[in-house]
C-alpha cells in the first residue's frame, strides 16, 4: 500500500438490543486505528456501546439504478401483506 489512508465505514450500536447503525466514515491506516478514530470522532457523547468498522472497499452495494430489477417484482404481490385478507366482523387476534 502507498501512504494513502483507507476509507472505513463506521457503525454504532447506540444501546444494547438495537442493531448497529451506519453513522459515517473516516480514514485510517488499519482496522484497529479506524476503531480508535471512530471512538474519538463518533462517540464523544456516549452515543454507543459498540462500534463496527468496515473497510469501504469491502462493501458490495446495490445501485439505485438497479432498483427495478431488484425490488420491483414485490409491488405486484399484495398477498404478502396481511391487509389483503378481509377478516369477518368480530374475529379477534388475527
Amino acid at each position, binding site marked *: 500500500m502507498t501512504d494513502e489512508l483507507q476509507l472505513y465505514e463506521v457503525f454504532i*450500536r447506540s444501546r*444494547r*438490543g438495537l*442493531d448497529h447503525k451506519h453513522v459515517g466514515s473516516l480514514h485510517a491506516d488499519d482496522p484497529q486505528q479506524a476503531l480508535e478514530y471512530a471512538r474519538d470522532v463518533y462517540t464523544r457523547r456516549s452515543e454507543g456501546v*459498540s462500534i463496527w468498522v468496515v473497510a469501504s472497499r469491502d462493501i458490495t452495494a446495490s445501485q439505485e439504478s438497479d432498483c427495478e430489477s431488484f425490488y420491483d417484482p414485490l409491488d405486484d*404481490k399484495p*398477498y*404478502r*401483506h*396481511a391487509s*389483503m*385478507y*378481509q*377478516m*369477518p366482523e*368480530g*374475529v*379477534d*387476534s*388475527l
Partner: protein
Amino acid sequence: MNDNVVALPDEHKFQARIDAEEKIEPKDWMPEGYRKNLIRQMSQHAHSEVVGEQPEGNWITRAPSLERKAILLAKVQDEAGHGLYLYSAAETLGATRDEMIEALHEGKAKYASIFNYPSLTWADIGAIGWLVDSAAIVNQVSLQNTSYGPYARAMIRICKEESFHQRQGYHIMMTLMDGSDEQKAMAQDAINRWWWPAMMMFGPHDGESAHSAQSMKWKIKRRSNDDLRQQWVDQAVQQAHAIGLEVPDDDLTWNEERGHYDFGPIDWDEFNRVIAGDGPCNRQRLAHHKKAHDDGAWVREAMSAYDAKRRAKSSAA
C-alpha cells in the same frame, strides 16, 4: 441452578444485566449454559421453520387456484427466510451451520413435533396457516423480549412477516366454510386433526418442562408454556366458532371465573411418541431434508470452485 455452587463475579454481572432487562450481545461474557441453551433453542426453532416447509410444500403444485398457489409459495418462501434469520442468529454464538444441520440429520436436534403430521387435503393448508402459525406467533411475540439481542431482533423481523401467514390460512378455512357441505366437512376434518397437535406445540405443562425454570431466569423464555397455550386457546376457539367450526374437545367450556376456556387433557403419550421419532411422518421429513441437502451438494461445490478460480485470477493479476 445449584445453590451450592458459588457464582462467579462475571455471572453476577451477567444476571444483573438480564434482571435489568438489558440485552446480551454476541461478544459479551456469558455462562456456558446460557450459550448452549440458546443454541439448542434457536437451532431447534430454525429447523422447525425449514422442516415446516414440507407439509405446506406438499400442496404448492395442487393449490386450487393460481392465486392460492402464489400465496402459498410466498408463505413457504418466508419460512425459508425465517430459518435463515435464526441460523444466522445462532451462528453469532459460535455454532456453525454445518454442525446444526448435522445435529438435525443425526436426530440430536429436534424440530417442532407438529410438522411430523401429514397434510392430507387442501383444508390442511388452511388449518396449518391458521392454527400452527398462530401458535408459533403467540410464542414468537413473547420471544421478541428474549434476553439475547440477535434472537430478539430476529423475532421482531419474523413476527412482522408472520402476520399474513395466519390470515391466509384462516381465509382458506373461511372460504371452505362458505362453500358446499363437502367443503365444510373438509375444513372440519382438518381442524379435527390439527387441533391437538397445535395444542402440543407449546410443550409440556409448566411443572414438567425440562428447561423452563433456568430459561425463565435467563429470560431465554419469557412466558410459561401453559400461559402461552391458554392465550392461544382463547383466541383460536373464538375464531373457530366465528366461521362455524367446532373445536374437537368435549371438555371445552368457558370458565367465567377465570375468564378463560377450560380444555380437556392433552395426550402426552402421543406427544412423547412423536418427539421420540415415531410420529406419522418423522422418517419422511428427515429423509427429505437429507436428500435436499445432498442434492444441493453440487451447487455448493460449484460455488466454491468458482470462488477459488476467481481468487486465483485476482491474485495472479
